[in-house]
């Protein structure tokens, strides 16, 4: 956090100053490690072992916050008798089909909720193939609101007992054996987090892509969620699991997604093989209880925002205009489509896949096989210049004269040359004022897409293919000499309007009948009262520590999600110290420091009547209002592609076996077994070292916004790897010298930093060396400092839920000295591939 979010880290330093104990668990000793109470080095890719052992520690010693667990989680819920755990199947859950390598989640259901024959409502192969879990993350898959439960937690099939059994093998000994964290260190951590949880205290977990970029990444977060729910740390101040996101509006990019499987507000894109019309779609997608019960209002308001008057009740509000998915259309599938020739035209907007995505060679081969490519950026990033400086030109795999890709480089406006909102890592929308006009041909992406849309519309006719474009609401006020579309008008459209044409103030006003419009339901209220709430700038010093009048957080400006859980079932704060929101019986409403994430008039003693829908179907004691049963899910009955509970699997490329289960790696992980994407064999003596990638404070991602800046480039001027003195001695690496790192994809050369910050770990009886590689460099890109591309080493192997690549744990070999060039490089890789 100190490394990649230094300004956010000030609050950690402040917490430490006030007595908080801070642990840092990371394969790599970073600036964070240097400034915490205890640093625990861990082997990359083994966090579920550690988290599982913490869960086991809590369960075995009954250290859970029982009152919270009983009231707010599905611990008591009884699971289908058809369910089989990894304990029974040596690392597999029930429902696995080895043929397709996909799970049928039917047996994971709550008792009495098991689907009949055929495709289940949520989950299943087609759902998994289209990254369906992505939308469930915030959404809550179908499950009944009042499933059978055993409040004594004794029923052998209740979630609590299943959890106990599942995690029993996650012991401190296993942590030592697999993670490399000693039993004493584990004991210190376990003691600290349990002692610091409960009524009076809360513990927070903070993670970043070190948890997500794994073939089992979603289950890392799940494991942390289970732990935090058991300890009563969710929905409470000082608790939670915080995702530290690495880009200015990466949160916004998922809320209002430019992602293949989502519509704005985590609404799933329709799937041709799963959904027919609007009604069928709504029936299939999501539960009727909890806030997702209102999904018709959200979707219809979105369709109205997009197709305006053309969207009517009679034509399903133009639901048919939405293109249909049939499977995986994600980034890496798209790249394969480029190589295969199905993808002809490609827009790359403020992104640099040629050096920023896993397996750079596959990316560049894809780019070289396009008809046309549009790159929009501030500088000439490698993706724009690959045709004249890609490493494949040197090896002879590509020739500039043979690359038929037509390339348009469109210079972009910077963040100060346009107005608009970023959504930060805490879901806070902040409006940026425009400081000045962009120079030369530079334009905002808003300008580009708006005017491109207008030009496209001029070229289209009125047939059924073109009608969705022609009928699209595409008319925003234009401002200034460049005819910049008004970002405020777009934000207002996102916020939505009521029947009177006025901006809506709350998502609760959204209607299923087409009388309201809303471009993104979770952002409804950002323009409440016709005021750009994201532009609010009341100084922090003039507000409470929650600072509700600085920007605007979705939903409804709530700063902590599910904060109903900060009060006990009766609506009283768990403790004075941790008071946040509470039920004011006199006034008959929820109140507190933050905006309650709950129906403000629903009393704690509310019990839903039979047949109630949406939020009314949840009780006054159900804080997790997006879930169909209002409970925090320790066990996930549907929605995930690789199991209802986290289980430790070794990374796809790993030097050691999985000693926990017979199943070595995540059975459902997505593998792209193609010639462009060869893998290192697991436990191969040719690739004996673990390697992990990460960022440095001085640079940003693949360097597009940092390498061209002298002030940043000089601070970290060369790609390097970090190795322990012991590995350096074994291999013959010299501090300040050169090393070549080899994987089945390619070999790259880097400078060497020999440092005791990197520690060899003893794993399953043998010493495992880890090599750290910051990934900020590329071969060109207008960078002041250039070098080989660390991402070229990475394989494309994906988490089965969200299709993110495993770039935090792989295997490699390391050699002293610089790499061979040209043909000789390919020969070297050939030798490694075939041993």
């Amino acid at each position: 956090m100190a490394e990649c979010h230094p300004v956010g880290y000030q609050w950690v330093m402040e917490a430490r100053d006030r007595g908080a104990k801070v642990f840092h668990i990371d394969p790599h000793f970073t600036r964070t490690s240097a400034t915490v109470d205890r640093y625990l080095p861990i082997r990359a890719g083994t966090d579920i072992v550690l988290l599982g052992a913490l869960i086991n520690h809590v369960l075995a010693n009954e250290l859970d916050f029982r009152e919270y667990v009983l009231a707010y989680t599905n611990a008591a819920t009884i699971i289908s008798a058809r369910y089989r755990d990894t304990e029974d199947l040596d690392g597999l859950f029930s429902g696995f089909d080895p043929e397709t390598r996909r799970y049928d989640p039917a047996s994971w259901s709550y008792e009495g909720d098991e689907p009949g024959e055929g495709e289940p409502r949520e989950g299943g192969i087609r759902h998994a193939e289209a990254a369906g879990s992505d939308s469930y993350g915030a959404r809550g898959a179908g499950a009944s609101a009042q499933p059978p439960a055993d409040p004594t937690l004794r029923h052998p099939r209740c979630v609590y007992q299943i959890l106990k059994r599942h995690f029993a093998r996650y012991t401190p000994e296993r942590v030592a054996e697999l993670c490399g964290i000693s039993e004493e260190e584990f004991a210190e951590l376990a003691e600290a987090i349990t002692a610091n949880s409960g009524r009076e205290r809360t513990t927070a977990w903070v993670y970043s892509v070190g948890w997500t970029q794994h073939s089992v990444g979603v289950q890392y977060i799940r494991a942390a969620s289970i732990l935090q729910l058991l300890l009563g740390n969710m929905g409470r101040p000082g608790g939670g699991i915080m995702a530290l996101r690495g880009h200015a509006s990466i949160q916004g990019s998922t809320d209002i997604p430019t992602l293949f499987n989502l519509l704005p507000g985590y609404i799933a894109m329709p799937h041709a093989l799963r959904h027919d019309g609007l009604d069928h779609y709504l029936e299939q997608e999501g539960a009727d209880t909890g806030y997702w019960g209102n999904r018709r209002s959200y979707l219809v308001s979105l369709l109205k925002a997009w197709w305006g008057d053309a969207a009517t009740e009679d034509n399903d509000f133009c639901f048919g205009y939405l293109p249909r998915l049939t499977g995986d259309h994600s980034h890496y599938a798209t790249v394969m489509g480029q190589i295969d020739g199905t993808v002809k035209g490609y827009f790359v907007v403020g992104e640099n896949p040629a050096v920023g995505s896993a397996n750079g060679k596959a990316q560049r081969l894809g780019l070289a096989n396009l008809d046309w490519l549009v790159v929009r950026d501030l500088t000439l990033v490698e993706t724009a210049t690959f045709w004249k400086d890609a490493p494949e030109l040197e090896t002879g795999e590509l020739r500039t004269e043979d690359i038929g890709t037509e390339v348009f480089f469109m210079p972009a406006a910077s963040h100060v040359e346009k107005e608009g909102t970023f959504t930060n890592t805490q879901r806070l929308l902040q409006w940026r004022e425009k400081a000045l006009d962009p120079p030369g041909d530079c334009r905002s992406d808003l300008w580009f897409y708006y005017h491109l849309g207008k030009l496209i519309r001029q070229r289209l006719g009125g047939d059924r293919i073109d009608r969705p474009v022609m009928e699209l609401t595409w008319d925003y006020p234009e401002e200034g000499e460049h005819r910049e579309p008004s970002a405020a008008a777009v934000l207002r459209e996102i916020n939505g309007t009521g029947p009177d044409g006025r901006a809506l103030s709350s998502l609760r006003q959204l209607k299923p009948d087409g009388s309201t419009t809303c471009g993104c339901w979770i952002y409804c209220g950002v323009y409440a009262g016709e005021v750009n709430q994201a532009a609010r700038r009341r100084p922090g010093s003039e507000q409470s520590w929650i600072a509700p009048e600085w920007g605007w957080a979705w939903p409804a400006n709530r700063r902590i999600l599910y904060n109903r859980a900060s009060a006990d079932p009766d609506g009283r704060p768990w403790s004075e110290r941790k008071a946040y929101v509470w039920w004011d019986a006199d006034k008959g409403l929820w109140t507190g420091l933050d905006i309650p994430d709950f129906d403000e008039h629903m009393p704690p003693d509310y019990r839903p009547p039979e047949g109630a829908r949406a939020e009314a179907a949840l009780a006054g004691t159900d804080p997790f209002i997006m879930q169909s049963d209002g409970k925090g899910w320790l066990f996930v009955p549907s929605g995930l592609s690789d199991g209802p509970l986290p289980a430790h699997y070794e990374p796809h490329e790993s030097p050691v076996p999985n000693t926990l289960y017979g199943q070595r790696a995540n059975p459902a992980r997505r593998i792209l077994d193609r010639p462009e994407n060869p893998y290192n064999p697991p436990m191969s003596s040719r690739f004996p070292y673990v390697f992990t990638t990460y960022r440095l404070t001085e640079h940003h991602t693949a360097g597009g916004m940092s390498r061209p800046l002298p002030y940043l480039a000089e601070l970290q001027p060369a790609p390097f790897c970090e190795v322990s003195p012991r590995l350096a001695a074994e291999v013959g690496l010299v501090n300040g010298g050169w090393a070549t790192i080899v994987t089945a994809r390619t070999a790259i050369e880097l400078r060497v930093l020999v440092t005791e910050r990197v520690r060899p770990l003893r794993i399953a009886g043998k010493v495992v060396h880890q090599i750290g590689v910051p990934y900020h460099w590329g071969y060109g890109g207008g960078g002041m400092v250039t070098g080989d591309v660390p991402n070229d080493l990475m394989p494309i192997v994906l988490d089965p839920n969200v299709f993110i690549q495993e770039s935090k744990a792989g295997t490699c070999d390391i050699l002293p000295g610089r790499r061979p060039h040209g043909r000789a490089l390919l020969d070297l890789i050939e030798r490694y591939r075939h041993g």
Partner: protein
Amino acid sequence: MAERMGFFTDTSVCIGCKACEVACKEWNDVPDDGFVFRATSYDNTGSLGADTWRHVAFIEQDGRWLMSSDVCKHCTQAACLDVCPTGALFRTEFDTVVVQPDICNGCGYCVPACPYGVIDRRERDGRAWKCTMCYDRLRGGMEPACAKACPTDSIQFGPLDELRERAEARVERLHADGVLEARLYGESPDDGVGGDGAFFLLLDEPETYGLPPDPVVTTRDLPDMWRWAGGAALTLAGAVAVSFLRVSFPRVPFLQASFLRRR
């Protein structure tokens, strides 16, 4: 005159992010310092100089990683200022030491005079440069760019007296917390430079950070130097006289005449 302003750099909370280095350069338009991979932990700018006015040191020790943002000390008795022949270096109303780029003629004398190795001449420009404690910002009531940017408040700016009190309290707190190696550096008005306007809380010996353990302003000995030089000058004159004495003693009577004689 305004209060004496200073920096207190508390390295115990430094996270080595180098925001200070960059913020300083952005404000003061300092050029880059070259692109050299030094293999000295995460430090690739090396030391303070004409093109690096804040420098973050990284020291890897067994189990800990020390980071510290170094800067011009703005000495109470500043050798650079003392020896500057042009008056380009002067003491401001904030008791800071600043180079005036419109005056400096690049004589280079300040460079070896500084006991901390701070000031240096920018060769492509010919003048000497160093931290000004953002003198222009101070004159507008703003804090220096580095202190403002510092994410963890490792760099604190304020009236020196206040900072000294705060630093004392911080050391006591750290000692109480068992960080016995915490110590202040440059805060004492009794040290060899009369105390630094920019002082530090360190977690190891100063030399570990590249700081001199007991710096003394060279001009402290200047009166003595002049005396010895005076002695040497007289000796020189005497030696010349002696040179003539031995051989021209007989001509002494003519000395007077010789002096008065017109050609």
